[in-house]
């Protein structure tokens, strides 16, 4: 277990130290999502009647697009000076590298979402004091970071990676985003049955995406 877990934690820890120094990914995600939140709050004037319809969609669209920018940075940092080769030369299986990179991205996204979600609640004047919100946010972020880590590795070797990543990632992420939007809406509507269904769906997607991505990551990194 230690042969698996310790290198994963080391890779994530290294990414956290680098991020604390460069602030590339966290700031990118945070600023982009907040800007979109402000713009959307002017475009869709929120009222008590329409806020349940508007907030979940705008929140998750913003986080999704901000996340794409963050994913792009994550693997580019490894690729730019050939550091990815340095990781590949370590005596660990490729799935360990995948889970290490995934854990780092998950933590960066969650850190940004801790600021983003409450700010959206303020902008749209909605209470988010419900235990379901963190559950939905964590499960969605796990799934999105799971596919994001894989697809950023696919795109990092392509010339137009900034364009390729959203084109490849977003269609695959649709089930997660839909479940996140519907789950958030169920919480805002106060529908416990709806929440349970979407939470189960998100958990299932998380497991499927994590397993599939970990299996395919090694093949993706092969030249």
């Amino acid at each position, binding site marked *: 277990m230690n042969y698996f877990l310790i290198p994963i934690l080391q890779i994530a820890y290294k990414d956290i130290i*680098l991020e604390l120094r460069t602030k590339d990914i966290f700031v990118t995600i945070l600023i982009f999502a907040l800007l979109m939140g402000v713009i959307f709050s002017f475009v869709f004037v929120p009222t008590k009647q329409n806020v349940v319809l508007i907030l979940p969609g705008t929140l998750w669209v913003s986080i999704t697009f901000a996340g794409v920018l963050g994913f792009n940075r994550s693997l580019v940092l490894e690729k730019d000076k050939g550091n990815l*080769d*340095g990781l590949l*030369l*370590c*005596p660990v299986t490729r799935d360990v590298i995948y889970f290490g990179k995934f854990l780092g991205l998950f933590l960066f996204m969650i850190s940004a979402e801790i600021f983003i979600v409450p700010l959206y609640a303020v902008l749209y004047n909605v209470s988010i004091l419900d235990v379901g919100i963190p559950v939905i946010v964590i499960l969605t972020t796990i799934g999105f970071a799971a596919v994001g880590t894989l697809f950023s590795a696919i795109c990092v070797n392509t010339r137009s990676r900034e364009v390729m990543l959203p084109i490849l990632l977003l269609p695959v992420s649709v089930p997660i985003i839909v479940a996140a939007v519907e789950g958030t809406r169920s919480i805002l509507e106060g529908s416990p049955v709806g929440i349970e269904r979407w939470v189960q769906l998100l958990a299932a997607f998380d497991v499927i995406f994590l397993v599939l991505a970990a299996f395919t990551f090694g093949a993706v990194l092969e030249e």
Partner: protein
Amino acid sequence: MTEQAARLQSVTKSYDEAPILRDLNLSVNVGERLVLFGANGSGKTTLVRMLATLIKPTSGFIEIDGMELPKHGVRVRQNIGVLTHQYLLYDDLTGYENLRFFGKMFRVDHLTERIMYLAEMIGISDKLHVRTRTLSHGMQKRFSLARALIHSPSILIMDEPETGLDQEAIEILVNIVKSVKSSLIMTTHNVEFGFRLADRVGIISGGSIAYQERRDALDVQEFKKILTQHSV
């Protein structure tokens, strides 16, 4: 029979059906230092990347330390130290943090002591706590050498390691490679430098080993003529 550190049989590597390595056969004995020369595009870097487990052969058989590749890639990587053109260091980590990260990944015991020992040996002690982005190319290369040696590998694989090094650093590199007990597979363009380290020299041309000889059977000038013939 002498134990072999590396053995390659009929190895071929092609990209988009264009062969880079063709039916390459090579073996290196334990403790032996093999230096390969060759023109640009002869397949040296591809060979190094293949031995480093970074790419797989299209066909053929590779064995490192008695373990077949790619089947035993993880165990092979534990036994090899690789120095490439690129430093493989994180710019925004200090030299110490870089070495610590890779040392942890290689599960090195008494890591702090090992880092201090290597730093002293390679002459990087005073730069250990400086971010690597601020270091000169030569100093980054020294840290890269420390990274390659952090886990005391039994085989050193080096691709033109002298590139970017000043004379002092080259002397350090030569002394270190001679002092460690590792087998060595190295590529270079610099005949004088290669001859200082080699037990055996070889020429890679057109993707296969075109010439091999014990170094003490040759002198530099004679070898340069042979190399020129194979580079045409």
